[in-house]
């Protein structure tokens, strides 16, 4: 079976699993809403202040939510001992990783789809005219987050205290992604919205570096 087809089947399996229980999505959206609400205590959410702090706040909410949401991705397989079944299937290890990665990308994108409009309403920011460019930044940032996050979820699934371990491993690695995504988003929320090409290129570079590393190392990641 080709890698793409195997990954597509695994993606369908993850989506079916999630849409039956809706556990991960609900928890992630609610958690992000709590974070966003709490930030309103930190500064006065007028339009001008929101333009200054908003992008950072939004991305911190996403990274925290991601570092919690990505945990079950491999831990669930580990708990149910289904990872062995996946390993025995006649598919490449990269297909397993890719299926997980794509499903996490879908979950994270759905969370953002709910969160960004709510955020814009709560913090008096306008999304008119920047929706397309904002989607690009969100997609690039999310790809970097889920690529590293899925790999680290596979790592932490084997460890003790894994719920605590995943954010510890993931968040320091994401520091450059946070800076780039926040700066790119800040450019779009400015009074004269502009897409900063440097940061978009940086985000793309981050994604390429870690996606390639995941592809090269995935054999070691899912081995027995």
């Amino acid at each position, binding site marked *: 079976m080709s890698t793409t087809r195997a990954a597509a089947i695994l993606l369908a399996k993850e989506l079916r699993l999630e849409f039956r229980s809706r556990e991960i999505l609900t928890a992630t959206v609610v958690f992000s809403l709590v974070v966003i609400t709490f930030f309103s205590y930190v500064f006065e959410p007028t339009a001008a202040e929101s333009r200054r702090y908003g992008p950072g706040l939004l991305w911190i909410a996403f990274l925290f939510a991601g570092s919690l949401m990505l945990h079950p991705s491999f831990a669930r397989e580990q708990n149910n001992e289904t990872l062995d079944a996946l390993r025995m299937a006649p598919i490449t290890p990269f297909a397993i990783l890719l299926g997980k990665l794509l499903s996490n990308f879908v979950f994270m994108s759905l969370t953002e789809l709910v969160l960004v409009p709510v955020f814009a309403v709560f913090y008096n920011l306008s999304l008119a005219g920047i929706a397309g460019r904002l989607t690009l930044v969100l997609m690039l940032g999310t790809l970097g987050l889920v690529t590293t996050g899925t790999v680290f979820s596979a790592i932490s699934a*084997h460890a003790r205290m894994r719920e605590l371990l995943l954010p510890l491993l993931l968040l*320091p*690695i994401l*520091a450059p992604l946070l*800076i*780039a995504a926040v700066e790119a988003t800040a450019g779009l929320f400015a009074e004269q919205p502009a897409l900063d090409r440097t940061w978009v290129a*940086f985000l793309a570079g981050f994604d390429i570096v870690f996606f390639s590393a995941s592809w090269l190392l995935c054999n070691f*990641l899912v081995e027995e």
Partner: protein
Amino acid sequence: MRFRIISTLFVAALVFSAGYAALFIAPDESTMHEVQRIFYFHVPSWITSFTAFAVVFASNILYLTTRRLQWDCLGVAAAEVGVACCSIGLITGPLWARPVWGIWWTWDARLTTTFILWLLYISYLLLRGLLEDPQKRASLSAIFGIFAFLDVPLVYMSNRLWRTQHPQPVFFGEQGSGVDPTMSKVLLLCVISMFAVMIPVLIDRYRLEKLRHEYDELRLEVENRVTDPRFVPTGGHA
């Protein structure tokens, strides 16, 4: 044993002479005066820690390609030494910055990168502690180590790009190219003595880790034999 005593004395003499040279022989710096002498401890600690992290990266790759546990042992030994040196750098840095820049810390590219580097390798050591199975511990921590090392240039680049677009904080120029020749000689001596301390520590830690692996394997073997029904105790009094 004799070699050990002689080498210990040699390293001690080297460290003493480096300390003496840094405090009394190196010339006085024109603007920072005595405070600047911490430079002779700060820079070598940074050089040794970065070397140690490069060793971690190399041994991670070597482990994944060869599957020999000795590379895993070298990886953990180098990571511990690297974190120790990096901590020295992170402590001496603010001590130097406070009287010279007027602040303990600034979120400048190099400082931020070092701090994140330190956090990443602490996570690496923490991860190792939380993985029980030796094979899993070796391969999974090697993957994390490679990701962490790949992240370092990205952290540096992002912070540089970011800070150049923002107003610079109070920042004193670095040591320029016109360093006094005595200063660079003293610095070299300090770097050598720092390595002379770190390399034996690294080797000892490496040996300790190998012994631990051997001990674990032997214990596992004994446990297997004891639970094996065919096992007949020998050598005792019947």
